[in-house]
């Protein structure tokens, strides 16, 4: 398979691009931010995602979705990144759907139709500390009656406050640090003894702290196998990691385009600043970094869609590389804009903030470089 978009994928990109540009450009993002909306996104827009076929794109066709792959989801995410379009697409349609693929028919039947219709929102409750360390999960799920009782705290639950369903990773056995003993649960947001504190993040997206104070769930809330949740958890997280990398590529690409345009407009010392070789070389270096990051992301998505076992390594490569390259793009972007880059009125700063959140989400560049080393055996 060649490493570029085929005709159908190129068409999808064009329609996703046109859609985000008209329905959810940065002005739309600002409107929701300035309104201090507690959900952080427009439910009407989420319905429009459904009309476009985006919200259920990863759901198999026989379950009402479009049966597309991660290359396609990445195409939509890149356009989301470019336009800073606030939506629950990544947590719901990519990560949540990946988790639900491992759930039983009843659970899927309960949640998938709402996702396809753009009504349901999913929050992902994995992290417990400030850094993403899934094997360190300490939250417990003790057997109780015919089900489990969940006790512990989660944080950085993106779209948590707006979520209808939480996908929760908890420990049914073993100790923090072990990958054995973890189990994945589908937990209704309205469950008793579950409380939530929304937190606005630096990029104006909404995270949440979730407190599980003995939340009772039935046995059929379990996704996959009890105690052996690591594999399905990793699959779900990897879907989210490569999705976040795609969104980051969109953020970086927009920041770079904006910056290169600015170099062609702004004059100092009687010249366009883009004539200064010091800036040209930094822009050209950034271009190379972004190209390589983009290639890594697409390669990882193709491997993932092909069910290739090398996908895991390549996803770690892609998240690490995108994290590093996009962070360079937004930092260089602000610097090369000079004072105006520090103003709220100019968009470049918004991209820097969005990158900061995406970089941290599901493991930063160091986390994934470390994972690459481990997967290579050192």
């Amino acid at each position, binding site marked *: 398979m*060649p*490493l*570029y978009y085929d005709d159908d994928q190129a068409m999808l990109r064009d329609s996703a691009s046109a859609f985000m540009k008209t329905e959810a450009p940065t002005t739309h993002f600002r409107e929701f931010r300035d309104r201090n909306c507690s959900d952080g996104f427009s439910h009407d827009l989420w319905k429009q995602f459904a009309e476009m076929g985006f919200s259920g794109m990863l759901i198999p066709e026989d379950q009402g979705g479009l049966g597309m792959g991660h290359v396609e989801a990445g195409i939509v995410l890149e356009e989301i990144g470019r336009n800073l379009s606030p939506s629950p697409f990544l947590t719901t349609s990519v990560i949540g759907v990946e988790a639900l693929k491992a759930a039983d028919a009843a659970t899927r039947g309960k949640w998938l139709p709402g996702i396809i219709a753009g009504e349901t929102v999913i929050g992902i409750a994995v992290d417990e500390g400030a850094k993403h360390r899934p094997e360190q999960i300490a939250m417990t799920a003790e057997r109780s009656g015919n089900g489990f009782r969940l006790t512990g705290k989660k944080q950085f639950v993106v779209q948590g406050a707006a979520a209808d369903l939480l996908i929760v990773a908890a420990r049914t056995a073993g100790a923090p640090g072990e990958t054995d003993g973890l189990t994945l649960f589908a937990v209704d947001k309205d469950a008793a003894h579950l409380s939530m504190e929304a937190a606005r993040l630096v990029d104006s997206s909404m995270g949440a702290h979730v407190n599980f104070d003995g939340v009772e769930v039935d046995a059929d809330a379990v996704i996959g196998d009890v105690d052996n949740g690591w594999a399905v958890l990793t699959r779900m997280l990897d879907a989210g990691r490569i999705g976040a990398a795609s969104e980051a590529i969109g953020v970086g690409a927009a920041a770079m385009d904006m910056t*290169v345009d600015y*170099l*062609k407009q702004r004059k100092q010392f009687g*010249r*366009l600043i*883009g*004539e200064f*070789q010091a800036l*040209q*070389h930094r*822009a*050209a*270096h950034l*271009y*190379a*970094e972004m*190209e*390589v*990051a983009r*290639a*890594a992301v*697409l*390669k*990882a998505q193709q491997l993932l869609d092909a069910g290739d076992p090398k996908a895991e*390594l*390549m996803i*770690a*490569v*892609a998240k*690490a*590389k995108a994290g*590093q390259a996009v962070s360079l793009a937004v930092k260089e972007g602000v610097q090369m804009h000079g004072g105006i880059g520090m103003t709220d009125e100019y968009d470049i700063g918004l991209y820097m903030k969005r990158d900061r959140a995406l970089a941290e989400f599901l493991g930063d560049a*160091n986390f*994934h*470089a*470390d994972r*690459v*080393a481990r997967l*290579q*055996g*050192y």
Partner: protein
Amino acid sequence: MSDLETFRAETRVWLEANCPPEMREPVRDETDACWGGRNPTYKSPAQKLWMDRMAEKGWTVPDWPKPYGGGGLSPAESKILREEMAKLGCRSPLSSFGIWMLGPALLKFGTEAQKIHYLNQIAKGEIRWCQGYSEPGSGSDLVSLQTFGEDKGDHWIVNGQKIWTSYADKADWIFCLVRTDKHDKYKGISFLLFDMATPGVTTKPIKLISGNSPFCETFFDNVPVPKDQIVGELNRGWDVAKYLLGHEREMISGAGNAPVGSLGALHKELMAQDPLLRAEMAKLDVDTLAFRAMGEKFIDEMKAGKGHPAQPNMMKYFGTELNKRRAELVMAAGGSDALEWESDGSGGGAKPRQWLRTKANSIEGGTSEVMLNVIAKRILDLPGA
């Protein structure tokens, strides 16, 4: 099975049967590769056998047309051949400036007679070529070159000096940039081909910091060159030269044959003791694997006519800087063992010599700074670059 699957299966069987075991070991350095030529030196009978077998199928240049000695493979088939060769660890059967540089330029600018004649020789490894571009006063600013060809009716008489001419002392022929009009800087250069055995051509090897002498000063003293040995039009050699540089930069970038293994994985004990070095190794692995994906994407896009025409400059910049970084880490991981110039600690000096050799990667074929200039101007369209 689809046609491509059949092709893959047949290719694998053929490679298994025909690639000698010695030719499945990685190439250690430039002297370990097969370069062909009029007076070839083979390191082993297996090396010759492998080249002959591949040349017979046209697979020294799989995607060149068959009449020119190629395999006539489609982009998808060549990709399969590359992948299957990589799986078995098959070496490239022939290293050649003819394949990497001159061939693509002839395919685009050569006459039919030139293509039939020169391309077949290249594909079979019969003639070894060298590149006469740089001069003492003209490196990055190549277009200022002074070597002059005086028009003598049915031939030119060439006088001047080239420098840094890789393997000039071993090459049979040279592709050479020669000024044929002193009044027009860009439109006064012609792209000439001539035999290094022509009277008036002399070479003088230059010793490098690695201790090897792979390149030379090359002198032309009244060298006659017949008029049919020009590629492209008179005075339009700069177009040919630039086109060729794109292919040269692609080759130097290592796209398609970037290192496969993880360096950190070779030094597990050290990695456990030295967390800062481990972190650098991890980042090297990230960039290496990401760049391999980039190499694959670059080749796929070029073959499909989708890539930006100036993209080889980005590839060369990234690939050579990465290769230098890798060699630095080979030295860091090797510690004082890697300092040994001749003895066993460093594989008979392979490590330090290779480390020194990589420093040329970001100079030869256009420096990293020049690559960044070209990206800025041609891809980012920045002003006055």
